[in-house]
């Protein structure tokens, strides 16, 4: 049995005064059901990824389609919430418990920094150590010194992803920026500028998952979920809300552990990928995670950009959707937004931002407490 995505839906990411999370979530679900050409009564189980919207939001969103009595569970794993929802849906169909499973991600986040009370202890907030981008800023400063990466290099990642986002109708920011504009934008937490940070926002994405017998003829719309791997940090913990850091231990980061697991499960390697959507909550992270995913040696992430590999037309485009820098990060929805993008790409339905003849794509998210998801889809 192979899990496949039979239908996708997405509500654009942005800010939508007047719309509730109910409206935004239902939009993506309706699209996904229509795309899969099934009715709501055929869904056997549903998982709703969300972090900042009210409890039981999944059941509330989905009640509009009918009270069919199925299991509807909210799941939360920070930025990897949507990967967990997808994994649950995949396991439901592989176990035979469900013929069709729905994975939905939906979020409404206000402007500004994440409300720290959801992640940090009161003492950390009182002492001022509760601004989440600072963790990557601390890492970026060491990385820049160790690998000779410049502020201009990091700004260029933002330039690339904003340029990609112009072609994505689901992105929040669809405007190019120049290196000079990025570097002139307000410094938020050195060395990270405002135009190198993703925006918190609203949006939803949904996928319908089902299973096919090995060797069964597959509709051209269906995309196989070759692997989903979800992890949290192994010691030493490096992520919010950590405050004690080892000075003597170095173990593989969660992104590497999840990627190696996903590649092994899929029987594929980095060389098989045609495109990647990865967590660029700030521009520096694209360099770091491209290395941790095995796409470049340590310290060489910037070469993917300098050498024209990660750009449109390159041999391994990264964040063709514009990434989180263009789309924003509605946390519950962001991972499934990547999945929807990859399905569009693998179907050949990604319009002007399409990667021609793409057959294998990887999606990566990582966030608080090292919650990390790596998903590999193939045509």
């Amino acid at each position, binding site marked *: 049995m192979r899990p496949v995505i039979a239908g996708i839906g997405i509500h654009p990411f942005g800010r939508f005064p007047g719309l509730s999370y109910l409206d935004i979530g239902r939009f993506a679900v309706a699209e996904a059901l229509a795309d899969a050409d099934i009715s709501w009564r055929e869904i056997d189980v549903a998982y709703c990824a969300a972090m900042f919207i009210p409890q039981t939001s999944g059941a509330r969103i989905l009640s509009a389609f009918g009270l069919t009595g199925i299991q509807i569970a909210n799941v939360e794993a920070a930025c990897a919430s949507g990967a967990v929802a997808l994994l649950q849906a995949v396991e439901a169909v592989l176990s035979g418990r469900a013929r069709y499973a729905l994975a939905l991600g939906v979020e409404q986040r206000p402007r*500004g*920094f*994440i*409300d*720290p*009370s959801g992640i*940090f*202890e*009161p*003492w950390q*907030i*009182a*002492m*001022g*150590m*509760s*601004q989440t981008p*600072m963790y990557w*800023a*601390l*890492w970026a*400063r*060491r990385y820049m*010194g160790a690998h000779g990466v410049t502020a201009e290099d990091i700004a260029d990642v933002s330039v690339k992803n904003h340029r990609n986002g112009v072609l994505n109708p689901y992105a929040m920011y669809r405007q190019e920026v120049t290196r000079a504009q990025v570097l002139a934008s*307000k*410094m*938020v*937490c*050195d*060395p*990270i500028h405002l135009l190198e940070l993703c925006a918190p926002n609203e949006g939803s994405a949904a996928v319908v998952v089902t299973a096919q017998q090995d060797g069964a003829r597959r509709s051209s719309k269906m995309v196989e979920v070759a692997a989903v791997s979800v992890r949290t940090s192994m*010691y*030493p*913990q490096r992520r919010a809300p*950590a*405050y*004690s*850091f*080892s*000075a*003597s*231990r170095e173990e593989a980061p969660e992104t590497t552990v999840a990627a190696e697991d996903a590649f092994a499960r899929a029987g594929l390697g980095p060389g098989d990928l045609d495109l990647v959507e990865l967590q660029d909550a700030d521009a520096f992270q694209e360099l770091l995670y491209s290395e941790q995913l095995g796409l470049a040696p340590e310290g060489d992430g910037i070469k993917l950009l300098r050498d024209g590999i990660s750009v449109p037309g390159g041999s391994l485009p990264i964040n063709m959707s514009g990434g989180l820098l263009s789309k924003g990060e509605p946390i519950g929805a962001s991972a499934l937004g990547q999945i929807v993008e990859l399905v569009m790409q693998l179907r050949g339905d990604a319009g002007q931002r399409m990667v021609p003849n793409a057959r294998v794509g990887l999606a990566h998210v990582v966030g608080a407490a090292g919650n990390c998801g790596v998903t590999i889809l193939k045509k």
Partner: protein
Amino acid sequence: MTAPNQRRLVNPDLFLVPEDNPSGLRLRGTECLDCGEMFFGARIGCEYCQSTRLSVRPLADRGVLHSFTILRNPPPGAYGRTIDDFTFLAIGLIELPDRVRVLTPLTVPDDSPKIGAPFRLDFDEVSTPDGPATAYRFVLEDQDT
């Protein structure tokens, strides 16, 4: 742990107060007796090897700057210091000789501290929803002294 002098601590798990010297506040270290890993703050088990054979001891009060960032906006949420004249807040990782790095606010004369610079432990007071409380920070050492 309750401070003998009834001083409220921002988080008692982070500190050691010597019973014979209540003013001699130190940062609390937890060392794993099996693998030797050191942690800042109290632990119920070793996060590395999962041993529960732990030893408590004070951490060094001097270290060097491993990395830092400068927050240009007041921190979100119930920040415990005044923000009326906020200019920046330096946050750093101080590497102690105990093989542990402590995340901490920094007291620095400007927004350009140097990695490797020496810092010493200090204490000050922050506001919390339950009232004032003692917190830690690290202060750039005067290199002329």
